[in-house]
């Protein structure tokens, strides 16, 4: 009954025998052990499980693991490089773009996917890009601000903060 699949997550290859009904999100969380990708709704509504698959943001609760065979996946765990936050992580921290943190990984991945295809989005474009991701805590205002701020940092525009070391509580800008 098992199907052997191989996927690459954050540059690392994972091979496993899986049941056909195993959802991709369960593969990521339980087979690969990457629990940063969350589950919030079961109906493709909340986006907590958003990952980037072959360059596009998808809801990993709405794809079977077997369908992802051979694909390249990026999750929240792959954002920071060499101990340095990705600009979107810096921006969310600086702009208070998160509260309970449960929607955050999905928001970050939806935001990264937007900025990779549109480096200079308007506020409305940001709001539309994250409209498949629900947040119960922030009212979105600071999430939108964070993504716009990340866009500015990634474009290397004015006022870009130098790298924030991980794990320090410092005054917000």
């Amino acid at each position, binding site marked *: 009954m098992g199907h052997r699949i191989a996927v690459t997550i954050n540059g690392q290859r994972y091979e496993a025998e899986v049941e056909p009904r195993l959802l991709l999100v369960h593969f990521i969380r339980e087979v690969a052990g990457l629990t940063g990708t969350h589950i919030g709704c*079961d109906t493709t509504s*909340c986006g907590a499980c958003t990952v980037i698959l072959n360059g596009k943001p998808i809801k990993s609760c709405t794809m079977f693991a077997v369908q992802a065979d051979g694909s390249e996946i990026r999750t929240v765990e792959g954002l920071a490089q060499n101990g340095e936050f990705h600009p979107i992580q810096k921006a969310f921290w600086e702009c208070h773009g998160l*509260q309970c943190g449960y929607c955050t990984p999905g928001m970050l991945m939806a935001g990264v996917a937007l900025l990779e295809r549109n480096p200079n989005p308007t506020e409305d474009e940001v709001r539309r890009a994250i409209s498949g991701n629900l947040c119960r805590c922030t*009212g979105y205002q600071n999430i*939108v601000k964070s993504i716009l701020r990340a866009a500015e940092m990634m474009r290397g525009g004015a006022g870009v903060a130098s790298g924030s070391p991980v794990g320090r509580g410092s005054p917000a800008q």
Partner: protein
Amino acid sequence: MSATLTESPHRVLGQPIKRKEDPRFLTGQGRYLDDIKLPNMAYMAIVRSPYAHARIVSINKEPALAVPGVLAVITGEDLEKLGLAWMPTLNGDQQMVLAVGKVLFQYQEVAAVIATSREAAYDGAAAVEVEYDPLPVVVDPFKALEPDAPILREDRKEKSNHIWRWESGDKAATDKAFAEAEVVIKEKIRFPRVHPSPLEPCGCIADYNKTQNHLTLYVTSQAPHAYRTVLAMVTKLPEHQIRVISPDVGGGFGNKVPVYPGYVVAIVGSMLTGRPVKWVETRTENLASTHFARDYHMTVEIAATREGQVKALRVHTVADHGAFDAQAVPSKWPAGLFNICTGSYTFEAAHVVVDAVYTNKAPGGVAHRCSFRVTEASYLIERAMDILAHELKMDPAELRRKNLIPADKFPWKSPTGWVYDSGNYHHTLDYALNLIGYKELRKEQAEKRARGELMGIGISFFTEVVGAGPSKHFDILGIKMFDSAEIRVHPTGKAIVRLGTRHQGQGHETTYAQIVAEELGLSPDDVLVEEGDTDTAPYGLGTYASRSTPTSGAAAAMCARRIREKARKIAAYLLECGEHDLEWADGRFQVKGAPHQSVTMQQIAFAAYTNPPPGMEPGLEATYYYDPPNLTFPYGCYIAVVDIDKGTGEVKVRRFLAVDDCGTIINPMIVQGQVHGGLTEGFAIAFMQDIVFDENGNNLVTNFTEYMLPTAVETPRWETAHTVTPSPHHPLGAKGVGESPNVGSPAAFVNAVVDALSHLGVRHIDMPITREKVWRILRSAGIDE
């Protein structure tokens, strides 16, 4: 950046410090319940009732037990043998853990299947055969009170669906004021049944060790210590053999206060199988069976003079509590703090009656950022004030100005017995009106109305009541509602602070660190905050009802001050002077008149372990249990501006200004974030949300495609501002803010919509104000575009 802080540690309070907890959430390293995996862990799935009211004829476990991987099937009958079929609720009722004899609401827990994998557990649950004999269903709480209504709770002595009546205020004085009144308004107002829906569903891992007779329960809980005590009472395990760990919690909003049947069954499952048992509910289970909020059917009357002076308030409410009276409220407050409903105004008399009723619906009522029913109270009075303004043809801002409690009347005693601690209401009203440009907006509205366009302005001037609470009035299961903090300052001057609360996104790891850092002259980077483990944290009642800053925040400050008193003695020893020659300034002890002679908390802490004064107990630690002398009364003025599309009935919130007064602000960035989130929940309630049942008691909104949550596209842009009137009795002057925006905003939205339609004779519209409702009103008023 941190260096600045170390140089001026006394400036920590009031600073928008970035949150200390964020790096783990930003990197996927948050540790939520479902992220925890224990060796040999089994999984549980729950079989739920398809009927709202039915006898259970039979349950056949065998097909489930035949499913590969299934370890056990548990039914109500099994629990009955263990004395665990029922559990006490916080409101003096009892609740079925698994159904015994009959089911009382759709999705009620009927059986549980434990298996070696999640998939096997669900396969097993699908295989359990339950035969039901449907009974007549009661959905409408008013019909539940009719004499011929079927009695739902056959386990109770009282053969009635009426649960209790609660009264507050002075009936005779109120009746007299109404008899003499020049003007009386009356309206029926419903606050819909809504659901908190934190993004992370509820769940637990029960890990019972038979050899040690020890239970560890990992659980999504806002109140881990209360859970431990309840579990000791329910399971009869000794309380010291129970450890409750609430890991990172993905939002709570009151949904994670109650102890749910699934937790108790998972514990039994672990005892039966000898394995840790994980149970994580689906979104449908969360929406259909865990605690809902509100569902208040209110009738409000105001007696006033022709000039608009309010005299008396009369309120009667029918409260739909569902199948069990399981709402989470303090013992003496069955309707929560609903009798704060005289609001921000100088009513002379009030009489409030609440009748609670059983129906065939899921239990609950108190949740969703409501401050124990203050949301209902605030909505009621703010809606009623607008109706009175409409009746008197007065501007709603002017009516409020005329009746707001004047600043010199604080502390102000309300006719239902509350003593409001502080407020400068007129100042806040004027500040908000000026900030939004109220006069200009009214002018614009008049011009638009002349052109046939629909624009409305809605004001809500709410008074919150939070920080439960003073032990003489507030307890849960007899345990007084104090809260606590414990601080240990290590030899190198770094500190850990542990508290009885449990955050779910409110930023406690930063806010409490700021409080302790401010009081001890440390950097917040050097203060670690820990909550959520009953083995390490001092006892506390948890985080809900906006109580954390008013109670544990105060405990943290008082605990730090206790440490500072010992530190003063050590400082005097180190500086070879008398204690009274010292002053606390700039985050250090210095000799009065000779500020260069000083010692820092780092030096003092080192001495406490290496060189304590002779005869002094070494170490630098303290614990403080804070029993608040009064509640705190945050307040605010919220103004919404809406435009309505005549063709579609769509309401567009053009502007929304929230001016909050929550006393002293510890971290303005976090406070603003709390306000944004609460306003968005208020917006959702005003325009989108209602848990609807059909006549058979079928819940029609059991997932996020039916129960609407706003996305970034619909959510308005929020404008926020503050006035600051400190609480006179809180050590820092802080009042709490988490729920204010959800308490205050629904009335502003509804008032704005009604204001836009008032010239058409509209006086009230019940929430949720959907496009269809507005469209129908416009059509019946003959407006067609």
